[in-house]
């Protein structure tokens, strides 16, 4: 049975996010993911609040990266969280986004290697080992916690490109696939399976999540309107081959990118077409979203993550998902 996850961005104050988190837990969501960007509120403060205000939901950063946050610190943060909420903590980790890293002058060096090494270090630290690690990107000289970490923390790898997806399948306990369209998710799952096979694992051993940009409303116009800003940024950040795969005019995407650079939101948002919304979000009425989720499930995903913007009114959208969408996948 598919699990439903939900993503929140701590640009919002903690009390809004925690209101929604409690609501989501009650409404049948099983996973809560909090994004990690230096320019928002701190992810681990948000997750600590989640540990306090929720009871059952599994939660973790979705996703952190080893360039901004050293793996040793990430291990410390998730191990401490797991003391607060034993068995409910997971770790989402990916290479990060280049634009954000550039802003703070951090280089994205050898991303595949960096992810592999950081996961090695984190797993060793969380299992209480003394870690002397000589990697190509990360090195530790006898790092060890002065407290005894408890329990296992599943690691999910956030991935988009084929090599990272395969690595995620190979070393991850889960994968967060950053895609919304069935074609993209199917392709990504194929890459994950290559990694799974290379590691001699079974595909069913890992939790494969489609981490989507999502917008639901009973009125499709309102659902679309909420999705447009997020989709405009995705379109602007997508490479030409991805745009072409979805039949999107690269020139139009370039115009949106230029408008966003100039902070001309009106021009950028008005350039977003229904095709772009269809390619880069799961958006529409509850029935339309159900149809799209059902298509995505055919590729073999085991978790569907509802990401920003969720809906024009987040509270109403969570209610719609809980009452009309999740029950359709529970039978």
């Amino acid at each position, binding site marked *: 049975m598919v699990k439903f996850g939900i993503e929140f961005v701590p640009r919002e104050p903690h009390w809004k996010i925690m209101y929604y988190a*409690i609501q989501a837990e009650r409404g049948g969501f099983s996973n809560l993911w909090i994004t990690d960007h230096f320019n928002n509120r701190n992810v681990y403060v948000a997750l600590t609040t989640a540990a306090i205000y929720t009871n059952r939901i599994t939660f973790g950063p979705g996703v952190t990266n080893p360039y901004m946050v050293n793996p040793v610190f990430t291990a410390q943060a998730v191990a401490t969280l797991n003391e607060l909420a034993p068995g409910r903590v997971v770790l989402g980790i990916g290479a990060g986004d280049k634009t954000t890293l550039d802003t703070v002058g951090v280089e994205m060096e050898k991303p595949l290697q960096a992810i592999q090494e950081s996961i090695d270090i984190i797993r060793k630290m969380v299992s209480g080992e003394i870690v002397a690690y000589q990697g190509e990107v990360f090195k530790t000289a006898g790092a060890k916690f002065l407290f005894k970490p408890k329990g296992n923390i599943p690691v999910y790898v956030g991935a988009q490109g084929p090599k990272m997806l395969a690595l995620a399948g190979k070393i991850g306990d889960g994968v967060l696939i950053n895609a919304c369209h069935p074609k993209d998710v199917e392709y990504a799952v194929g890459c994950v399976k290559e990694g799974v096979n290379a590691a001699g694992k079974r595909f069913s051993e890992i939790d494969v999540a489609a981490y989507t940009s999502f917008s639901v409303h009973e009125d499709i116009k309102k659902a679309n309107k909420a999705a447009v800003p997020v989709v405009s940024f995705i379109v602007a950040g997508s490479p030409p081959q991805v745009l072409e795969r979805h039949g999107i005019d690269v020139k139009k995407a370039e115009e949106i990118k230029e408008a966003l650079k100039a902070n001309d939101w009106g021009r950028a948002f008005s350039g977003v077409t229904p095709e772009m919304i269809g390619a880069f979000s799961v958006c529409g009425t509850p029935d339309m979203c159900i149809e799209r989720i059902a298509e995505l499930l055919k590729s073999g995903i085991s978790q569907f993550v509802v990401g920003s913007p969720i809906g024009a009114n987040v*509270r109403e959208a969570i209610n719609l998902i809980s009452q009309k969408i999740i029950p359709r996948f529970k039978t």
Partner: protein
Amino acid sequence: MDYRKLVELIPVAKWEALSDKLVDFILTSKNDEKMPSPLANTILHYWQQDILKRESGLAVLLEAALLLEPDKTVNAFTELQMANIAEQIKEALPPKEGGI
């Protein structure tokens, strides 16, 4: 303003509808900075216990909604056919900045 006393004036049959509106005002408000942290934590604590539709929950929601969205909150009372309470709240609210 004594929010508990204010809740006592509201017919019990209207608590649920009012609570729903107030939560919406608070969550969609752009005046986040006006929310005092202890009040936010109390609201979350009550939400966790699922008592925001009860007397104590409604009192904290009213306090927050009147801080963040006073006009919408007063209008909600009128919409829910409690114009007399809306008037009492208006009189008790501090005058708006920039007023004469």
